[in-house]
Every structure is written in C-alpha cells, then in structure tokens.
C-alpha cells in the first residue's frame, strides 16, 4: 500500500523531518558542550551562526510535522474503503498494530514541536541567548521523538495490506467494550459535559490571568493538558453522539468525515492549538530567563496564554453550538 500518494507524501515528510532533527540533535550536543557567549572564538561564532540555520530548518520541519498530523488523520479516513470492516479512520488505524502508536507519536510530536517553536521564538526575540541551553536540551528530547514517530509511521505503512480485515469504531467505542474507548463511551454525558465546562473555565481563567501571575502560567500547562483529556472524553461521551444524532455512536474520528461537514477539524484545531499554547506558556514561564530578557519572556507568556484561552473558548463555543443545534436529547 506504500504507493498511495498521501502515504508517499507522509513518508517523505517524516523522512525529511527525521534527517533534519537527527542532524539538529547532533548539533545540539555540540552546542551544549561548548556554548560560551562571553567567548569570541571562531568556534563560538560558528555555533552562533549555525543556531540560525537550526532554528529555521527545525521550524520548517516541525511545521511540516504539524501539517502531517492533519494529513495523516484525513488520509486514514479516506483510506477506510480499502479495508474490509473499516468505516472511518479507526478501521484504517486498526488495520495494523502500528496504526494507533503512530497517531499517538504524531500527537506527542505536535505538542513537543509547539513548545519547542515557542521557546525558540522567545529565545530569538530575547537577543541575549536567554533560553539557548534549555532550547537545545529540548531538541535532544524532540529529536528521538521525531525519529521514533518516523519509524512508527514507516512500520505502519509497510504493514498495511489491502486484504486486511479490520474492526472499526463500533468495536472500539462501544459502550459495552472493556477497553478505555468503551469506558469513555459509557461515561454519563451529563458528567462529561459538566467536567468539560469546569476544565474549560479553569484553563481559560488561567490563560487570561497568566500575563500578570507567573504561577498561573506555570499552572496552565497541567491544566491545559487535563482540559485536553477531559475534552476528548467529552467528545467521545457526549459531543460526538450529538453530532451524529445517534446516542450509541461515540466515534471521535467519524466527525472528521465529509458527511458531518468535517466539523471535527473545526473542533480539534482550536483544542490542539489551545493545549499546545498552554503547555508552551507553562514551559517558558518555568524556564530560568535572564534579567534583560524578562520583559520579552513576560510578553511571550502573555501571548501564548491568551492564545490558549482563546483556543479553549473557541472549542467550548463550537462544542456548545453542536450540542445546541443537534436534534438529539441525551440529557433529560
């Protein structure tokens, strides 16, 4: 199945990312070992010049990685007719043991890349290399993650066979299924929506308050991550059935399909951006800056936290609109 155009594009993108991040990782090791901004040696000047290249190429491949997450999900949905038993992306991902690990790896890379790019931007604005060491230490975490993701993706696509019989969302997100998907599907929609409301209020409140209070920015990270988890649980338990207007259809992937107006993309995009920005605000706030860079860092934290708050607000508004418009009444 490797000769499928989106698969070729995805493999090309992840291959390019792996090569670039591999090289960037090696440079990160060199920089962490020999970085000394007080030294005017040729080696130090070379390192300073190369940081511009690394920032640019890593920003490029991480943007590519973010786009490839959307392309991967879209393609998984589009390939469903090729597998017996597949009705949506879940069936395509279930067609190989590497399907869901690839998706999780891509999501992890998306958030890690978001945080790294935010730190990089702040560091470039700060002008005194305030965050250079933590930034390149972060690259040493990001590089293996991207390499692993490229490996998972290649294994997944090589393992895909056209005659595979797979199981789809009805099996994974059935209320009577003993796995996590079944537990989330069986969650009381009233509880799920209340929990979502509470999580969104907490995340939005911290997001708007983070500019003035550093602790709020640091707290925004775990709260945004928790809100992301609660939001996914709410989508499975309540929001998806409202979209399908079927109480027992809980799939969080079918809402990406054309017949539901691709509404899933409108729902997930602000959620992912909000979570990424929240995590980035927390990490930037937690990093030790320099005296001269304090104002730049504070402005950046404020911008990221505000983006996170707006993203969660948007997600909440879209989710509420979907529930409001639905002809289904899950809660009496």
């Amino acid at each position, binding site marked *: 199945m490797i000769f499928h*155009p*989106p698969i070729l594009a*995805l493999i*090309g*993108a992840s291959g390019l990312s792996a090569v*670039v991040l591999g090289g960037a990782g090696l440079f990160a090791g060199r920089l962490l070992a020999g970085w000394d901004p007080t030294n005017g040696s040729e080696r130090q000047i070379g390192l300073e010049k190369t940081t*511009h290249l690394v920032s640019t*190429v890593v920003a*490029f491949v991480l943007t590519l990685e973010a786009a490839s997450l959307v392309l991967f999900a*879209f393609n998984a949905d589009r390939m469903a007719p090729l597998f017996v038993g597949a009705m949506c992306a879940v069936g395509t991902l279930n067609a190989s043991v590497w399907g869901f690990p690839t998706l999780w790896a891509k999501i992890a890379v998306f958030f890690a890349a978001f945080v790294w790019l935010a730190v990089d931007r702040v560091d470039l604005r700060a002008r005194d290399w305030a965050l250079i060491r933590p930034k390149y230490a972060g690259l040493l975490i990001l590089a293996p993650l991207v390499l692993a993701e490229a490996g998972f993706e290649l294994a997944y696509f090589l393992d895909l066979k056209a005659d595979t019989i797979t199981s789809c969302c009805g099996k994974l997100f059935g209320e009577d299924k003993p796995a996590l998907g079944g537990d989330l599907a069986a969650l009381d929609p009233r509880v799920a929506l209340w929990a979502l409301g509470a999580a969104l209020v907490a995340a939005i409140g911290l997001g708007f308050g983070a500019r003035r209070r550093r602790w709020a920015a640091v707290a925004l990270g775990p709260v945004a991550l928790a809100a992301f988890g609660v939001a996914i649980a709410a989508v499975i338990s309540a929001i998806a059935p409202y979209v399908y207007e079927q109480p027992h259809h809980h799939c969080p992937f079918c809402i990406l399909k054309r017949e539901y107006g691709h509404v899933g993309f409108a729902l997930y995009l602000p959620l992912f951006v909000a979570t990424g920005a929240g995590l980035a605000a927390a990490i930037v706030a937690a990093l030790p800056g320099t005296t001269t860079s304090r104002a730049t860092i504070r402005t950046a934290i404020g911008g990221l936290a505000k983006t996170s708050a707006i993203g969660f607000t948007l997600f909440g508004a879209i989710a509420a609109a979907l529930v409001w418009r639905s002809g289904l009444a899950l809660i009496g």
Partner: protein
Amino acid sequence: MRAAFERRRHLVDFAVGSLARHPTKNLGLVVTYALVVFLVGSVMLYGSAIRREAAAMLSSGPEITAQAMVMGRHDMSTSADVAALKGLRGVRRIEPRLWGYLWDSAGAANYTLMVPPPSDAAHAVGKGEAIVGEGVARARKLKPGAMLFLVSPSGKFLKTRVKSILSSDSALVSSDLVLVEEADFRAFFELPADVWTDVAITVTNPREVTTVAEKAALKLPRHRFVTRADMSRTAEALFSWREGLTLALLAGALVAFAILAFDKASGLSAEERREIGILKAIGWETGDVIALKLVEGGLVSGVAFLVGVIGAWAHVRFFAAGLFAPVLEGWSTLYPRFPLAPSIDALEIATLAALTVAPFTAAILVPVWRTATADPDAVMR
C-alpha cells in the same frame, strides 16, 4: 499586533520588489516549479477522477455476483444453481446473466457480448437486433439502423441490425459492449438452454450483503461470491497504486528540481550580494534577511503552485490528461472516450503541497541561511 502585521506587510512588499528586480532568474524558476506542480498534479487529479468514475460506475452494479468455479477457473452456472439461490432471505432479485467475449478480427478488438437482463427494459432488444457501445460504433463506423455482422470462433455468423448506440455517459463500462437477444446469443456461442455466465444477486439491505453472500456460499459451494464492495476496493487499490507508482517514477524529476532550486538560491549575483550587504549594514539582522528570503521563496511557491494546479486541472478536464492517461488507465483498442471532471479537495492539495512545496522549501533553506549570515563587508567588497 498591528505593528507585527505592518512589519510583515512591508516585508512582503520588499520581497515582491526584490523578485521584480531579477525577473529573468525568478521567471525561469517559477516556470520550472509550475511545470513540476503541473506534472505531479496531473497524475493526482487524473488518478482521483478515474477512481471516482469507477466508484460511480460500480455503485449501479449488483451487490453480489456469483460465479461457478471448476479447478479454480470460471465455469458456467446452471438453472439448478439459480433455483438453489431462490428463497434466500434478504435477497431482492436474482438474475442469471449471459455474457462473453468475442475477438473481432475486422475491428481488431475484443467485444463483450451480453444479453440485457429482463429488469433492464430500456435496453431490451428483439431477435436480430443489437445495441452497441460507443467504442464498437467508433471501430465499426456504425449508426442506428446499420447492419452489424459478427463471426463466432467456430465460424457461426450473426447478422444484426443496430437498434441504438449506448450513451457515452456510460462509456467506461459499455464502450466495448454489444447487447443481443438471448436466443441469438445462445445460437452464436452454441450454448445449451440451461447455462448462464454468472448470477447477479441484488440485496435489499446493503448492511446484509456479507451475510447473504455467506448464506449463498453454503447453498452453492462450487461458486465464488464477489461483492460490489470487493470490486470497489480492488478498483480503488489498483488506481491508487498506479497513481503512486507514477508519482514515485516522477521522484527523479522532483530531486532534479530540488537541486535546481538549491543551485538558484545559492548562486547570488553581485547585485543581490550588494543588496544584502546594504540591508545588513543599515541594521537588518540575520533573522530579518532569512525572513525576507523565505517570503520570496513563499511568493515563488504560491505563484508556481497556483499556475501548476490550474494547468493540471485544465490538462485533466480538457485534454483527458493525455500525458499520463495511458499509464494510469491501461490500454485497449476500444478504450472508452469519457470526459473526466477533476475535483480538487483538501487532501489532494495537502498531498500535492507536501510533494512539491516541501522539497523546494527544504532545498532553499541552507542557501538562504548562508546568504543571511554572510558578513556585510565581505559581500559588499
């Protein structure tokens, strides 16, 4: 926020001016880039259009086709087999079909001779009549009312009058078709009265197709049951594979283009070097120069991508993708002539961008960085 927007607007203005100052170099790059997008885009748009056409064609076929098998090869079904299937729950209609292939030495092509099913009143033919596909009409220069003479492999002669020619809307499946009456067909191929080529089974509830096929297989273990979903999957997989393979073959062109882009971005003229030197001397930072060059690259990509996609769309829509059609659709003497309506969706655009814009951008990053980090005095001297 406003300041950042203004900064970007000025950067774009400056980049447009910079590109306009070197028209020959940039025009050459845009034309080559657009050509690459056009080639890759044509393959993708044609592939998706033909897949959609195949899916639309199969959607009107029977849900299940039963074929008798002997020693792994197709055999004729009998009336007893058809009778055995009658009474299956969930089945709306069972239609035994008669069809076969005929090599026509006069037209140097293979025809598909078929008896129209009784449910298809629109294509009913009487004794001595025939309805022909547009490919057959083209090969034999036939018009309604003309005579069509066919000779069977055993030398039997069939004389028919053309009743009508099938619409070109269904050409993908009917181009090589000749519809004749049952008695004419049996006499021509010397078939006994109780045998059939295969059996078409129409199922009431599409969700029960698999169950009905399993139950039918228990009744007729000597038959294989091919569902419409199986055929759709095969068509989708086959055309996707051909499309992907063609794209893989174009990888060499993509690499060559990336090398060209790298070379163009690396080979700065003396004037361009001086320009960058001046910018750095008046206070532009390395990051600003990188941003400027990336905006220039983005503008080149945007224009070339747009031109390439429009060209690819026109190539498929108005010229039936003449450059790639034989590779993607296969070959036949009576290959149907049918208009394809390419449709561009987000997945196609994203894939096309990943296959063309991403390599271009990757190729110019290092030259851009080299340019941006050069010392002003060194580049101006």
